[in-house]
């Protein structure tokens, strides 16, 4: 499912010349019939993609919430990138990053 969402993201990237930063798509029902996940995509200016999968049983998160979550995610990601010891492509092991992500998830759920 993540791969299909990535495909959609790529498609959107090529489609939109601008407004890359705030892309989102919903896959409601597209995934397994039993599971309704919404997949949100977000692309940064450097083509780094964030994919967020949300369980639809969660009263649908408002778009704004998703956007703010992506913004926070983006911000934390840049903080992680600041670290010269971090090699792009590695698994992110930053504790601050993880804590931010966790707090975000908790807040939503």
């Amino acid at each position: 499912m993540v791969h299909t969402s990535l495909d959609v993201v790529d498609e959107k990237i090529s489609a939109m010349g601008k407004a890359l930063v705030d892309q989102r798509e919903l896959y409601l029902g597209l995934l397994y019939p039993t599971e309704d996940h919404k997949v949100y995509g977000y692309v940064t200016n450097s083509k780094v993609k964030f994919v967020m999968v949300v369980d639809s049983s969660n009263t649908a998160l408002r778009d704004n919430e998703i956007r703010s979550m992506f913004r926070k995610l983006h911000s934390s990601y840049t903080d992680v990138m600041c670290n010269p010891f971090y090699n792009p492509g590695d698994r992110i092991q930053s504790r601050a990053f993880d804590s931010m992500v966790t707090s975000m998830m908790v807040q939503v759920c």
Partner: protein
Amino acid sequence: MEGLTLSDAEQKYYSDLFSYCDIESTKKVAANGRVLELFRAAQLPNDVVLQIMELCGATRLGYFGRSQFYIALKLVAVAQSGFPLRVESINTVKDLPLPRFVASKNEQESRHAASYSSDSENQGSYSGVIPPPPGRGQVKKGSVSHDTVQPRTSTDQQEPASPVVSPQQSPPTSPHTWRKHSRHPSGGNSERPLAGPGPFWSPFGEAQSGSAAADAVWSGHSPPPPPPQETWVSFADTPPTSTLLTMHPASVQDQTTVRTVASATTANEIRRQSSSYDDPWKITDEQRQYYVNQFKTIQPDLNGFIPGSAAKEFFTKSKLPILELSHIWELSDFDKDGALTLDEFCAAFHLVVARKNGYDLPEKLPESLMPKLIDLEDSADVGDQPGEVGYSGSPAEAPPSKSPSMPSLNQTWPELNQSSEQWETFSERSSSSQTLTQFDSNIAPADPDTAIVHPVPIRMTPSKIHMQEMELKRTGSDHTNPTSPLLVKPSDLSEESKINSSVKFASGNTVADGYSSSDSFTSDPEQIGNNVTHQRSHSGTSPDNTAPPPPPPRPQPSHSRSSSLDMNRTFAVTTGQQQAGVVAHPPAVPPRPQPSQAPGPVVHRPVDADGLITHTSTSPQQIPEQPNFADFSQFEVFAASNVNEEQDDEAEKHPEVLPVEKASDSASSLRVAKTDSKIEEKTAASVPANVSKGTTPLAPPPKPVRRRLKSEDELKPEVDEHTQKTGVLAAVLASQPSIPRSVGKDKKAIQASIRRNKETNTVLARLNSELQQQLKDVLEERISLEVQLEQLRPFSHL
């Protein structure tokens, strides 16, 4: 002789002994007398002593240099441990206990011995993370730590590890050591053990020259237990030993420098480690000095930054795992700019030392390590940039330029520098820098990006060009026909934001403008005002500056007039001409009745045309009556309408502006309702306010409210805007003529007012036609937007 590697404890001990023996305070030579005495105290057979002396080269040299002394001490320890005395044994024997000198002629010796032994015990307890405590736990050759430190120092020249390795107190031990020391009345080195290592380091740094201070310190307090770190010693692995040996007092100076560097590195580490625990995480002065020196080696400018890559190399030398280094970086890079200021660097260094000493890294930066906000004293005015866009890899070592535009928050200079660096370095930060810039300069409403910053939500981001256009228009209109501004205006309108609130402001502004120019003004000012207000609305905050924060659009009809107006500042245009009768509205933006009228009809397309006409027709009628008065009232009304609420009250205030057509009002209000909520509010409010001016204000308000909900689905901000704008324009124009009410009794005034009215009429008529045009355009846009909305609808709401 081979190099001598000493553990930290050993080094401390030896140094202390050396200082003890250095009665001549030469720091280079141990008095033979004392040395011999010491050796005898070691309870070694004389022949062994002689052998030791021979081995260490003292006999060759004729005196005990520091290196010789150390070697001798080591040999004593070896002998005392029962190992055969050999040159190789100096370094090969691991876990050698400190030489014991029984005949403690010197209180120091015994003390030292005692302290050392106790220290070693402590050490043992701490060995913990650091290389597993050797069996004895006392002297850790620290081969492991050697390695860690080695890389770091290897770059520096070799340093005589042994002397250099100042007692790196393992943090855990330091407290203990400290206590122990305190027990001993040694010289009262009140400094914490951390300090001990610190100064100790420096002496070592001076290498064999042995700084007096260090010695003093050294002797002052019993040497802290040898830190588990033998990192320093490891540096010795590189041929420091040879250096040590070859070092003669004479040549010590040279090497001292070298060693200083090297030792500095190690010392730093050691110091850091120890100091990091003392309080815990507190950096002692010596350590700090060391860190600063290290910083200088990388970045000569103390106020500059160390780029991430350089810092990475530097800290990689410490041989900590990348993950830990990464964590240390996260902790210490306070402003997240990918570069380390002096403070950040010291903190990072400190953490590395601590880690090497076995202390776990904290989850968040300890307070004592936080980059002091006022540390570098450089007029910190940069606001902290929280999570600025990240580092792109080569943070500029940019000169510590403080972004001048930065608002002077209480940020440290480093923060400032880094922030400014960020802005300079990373393009991504441009927006933020702009934002920051805007913080300070509320003055420049022109900056579209400031929209983010400005509190006014409504703010649009009018392009500067647009604003300039507006400005030009204003100036132009002053002298030329109003049509030009009008023409420009429609275009502006179309470009402008889709934000409802801004529209509101725009209309408000336009009205205000219209009003201001009431007196001797023709439609020009109105238009100009409209334009200006339009812009103002977009500019957002600037207009707000004059008016009280919330919405009330700046009523200043004539920018030139209203000093408080940002527009005046911004545009620096249009002076006087438009001033007319409109008094500079006090911050409480007087609502613009006109806009309300205008938007109302404009909003509703089908009826708009009619509405406009009616409004315009009526407004002029109404307006002429009380130009001055009306202005205010209208403005007030507008303000009220903007607020969405109290229109009623406002309306009441303007008795004269009785809306002729209540019907038209209703119609307009209805139309308003159709538009976006905000616009509706405004227009509706204004419409009823204007029209009724005191008539049943209650009626209109509910209508807009109701309508607003309905129109929520419609996304036609642009359309609304346009309609509003046109409406506003019309309103303004309409109001204008009315303003110059010929209150004056004298003929001249009357004639003048008549003339003005006529002019206004013509202008209004022209405006009307143009607005009609705009209306059509807007309608088209609306249709297109509706279509888009429908397309997006399935996805927009969940």
